[in-house]
Structures are given as structure tokens and as C-alpha cells.
């Protein structure tokens, strides 16, 4: 466990922690919306017209990755401000060379995690392009 996570656990134990109904913080991609993007039917254009611009454009737009944050609890340091305890969520989309969506996967990162690990999972490093 990293120093950051240990410190966070200690702070929570010493202070207060309120579990909450998981909710987005800031911008959120709605499951109902992105599930309308069906593989082998939706195109890159449909994706952009539905979800807007991706946070990550990977391998010359073969992969798009959208990112948002879901809060599962709020911590509280006495006499301080509450802070969100969150996990980043990612939507990974893969396209064929003729722009059709062939893969749609939802990943949940590590608590307060960075996207690099998920980018690797999303792009399945060094894999040849799939055909539809």
C-alpha cells in the first residue's frame, strides 16, 4: 500500500467517514447513454456526437477513452472540509480501420488512481488490430 493510501486510511480512521450512494463528481458519462452505442453499428462519428470529445485519443484514434469520477464516501477531518473518496471510471472504445466501434469496455481504476494503467488495459499493448 502506498504512503498516500496509508495516510488516507489513517485520516479516515482518526476522523470521520460517511459512505454515500455512489455518485459522480463533476462531469459523468451516463451508462444509459453510452450503452446506446452498439458495437459493429456505431461509428466514431456517432460516439463523438453522443459523448463529445474523449479525454484520451490513443493510437491515432483507434482507441478513445473517456474518464469520470465516482464518489463512494466522504471523509471528514474535524474542523476541516469534507473530502471525496473516489475511484476514477473509464470508458474504453476501440474502432476498426473503417471507423466502426468494435469494443466497449468500462474500467474502474484504483482509488485516486492515474489513467496510465487503464490506458494499457484499454489499448491491449502491442495487439494487432481486430477485424470486425
Amino acid at each position: 500500500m502506498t504512503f498516500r493510501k496509508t495516510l488516507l486510511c489513517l485520516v479516515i480512521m482518526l476522523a470521520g467517514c460517511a459512505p454515500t450512494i455512489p455518485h459522480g463528481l463533476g462531469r459523468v458519462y451516463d451508462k444509459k447513454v453510452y450503452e446506446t452505442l452498439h458495437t459493429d453499428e456505431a461509428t466514431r462519428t456517432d460516439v463523438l456526437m453522443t459523448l463529445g470529445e474523449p479525454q484520451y485519443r490513443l493510437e491515432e484514434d483507434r482507441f478513445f477513452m473517456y474518464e469520470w469520477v465516482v464518489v463512494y464516501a466522504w471523509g471528514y477531518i474535524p474542523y476541516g472540509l469534507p473530502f471525496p473518496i473516489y475511484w476514477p471510471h473509464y470508458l474504453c472504445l476501440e474502432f476498426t480501420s473503417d471507423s466502426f466501434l468494435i469494443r466497449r469496455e468500462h474500467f474502474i481504476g484504483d482509488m485516486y488512481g492515474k489513467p496510465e494503467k487503464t490506458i494499457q488495459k484499454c489499448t491491449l499493448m502491442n495487439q494487432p488490430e481486430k477485424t470486425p
Partner: protein
Amino acid sequence: MLRAIYLPIKLTVFVSLLVATIIGCWGTVQNFDQLSTSKYEGFIHDGNTTKKEVIDRLGPAHSIYENGKILIYNVYLKDGRMTLEGNYKCHALVLLFDEDNFLKRHRLIRYGCKNSEKEL
């Protein structure tokens, strides 16, 4: 002693719920209703507006996709107008052009711009 422990927990729950209510669910990415946004869009008309007109009026796009077939602008809605400058609630104006560079389809997507998260 018990009271000293109980109060912060009670306050935590209350503040959490309050913050979650205020911040939590107001940033879902979705399409704006086309009818309600048409007033912001001015010169942008499917089938008529050309790519050159768009670039002349709005400047270079923030992002280009599909070899220039799709242009995306980060926009803000302010005082009933769509503007390119702002610092709050950034949206994506997605413009799809046909082979003759006429606007085929466009959509305004709430919180759909790349950097929206930082600005919310």
C-alpha cells in the same frame, strides 16, 4: 467524550449529503435539446453552412477528427449566446461535414468538451 465523537460524525453525514447534493449529479454528459439550443447557434445550419464559414467565424477548431470531417469547438453558454470564451461549464459543439464541406449534422453536447472536468 462520546458527544465529542458523535458530533463530528453527525456533521460529516450532514455535510456529505449536502455536498453530494450540490456537486454530485449536475454534470451528466448529454445532448442539449436541439430546439432549446437553436437560439444559441446563429449562423450554423445543417445543409447550408460551409466549413470555411465556420472557420472564418469561429477560428480554428479545438479538435479535428476523421481527417477534418468533424470539427469540435469548446463553447460556453452565456447570457443567451454561445461563446468561445468562458471559464465555467464547457460544452462541445460537434460539427460533421460532408465531402463537399457542407455541414451535414451538428450537436451541442453538455459538458462534452475535453477539459470540462477541470472547470466544473
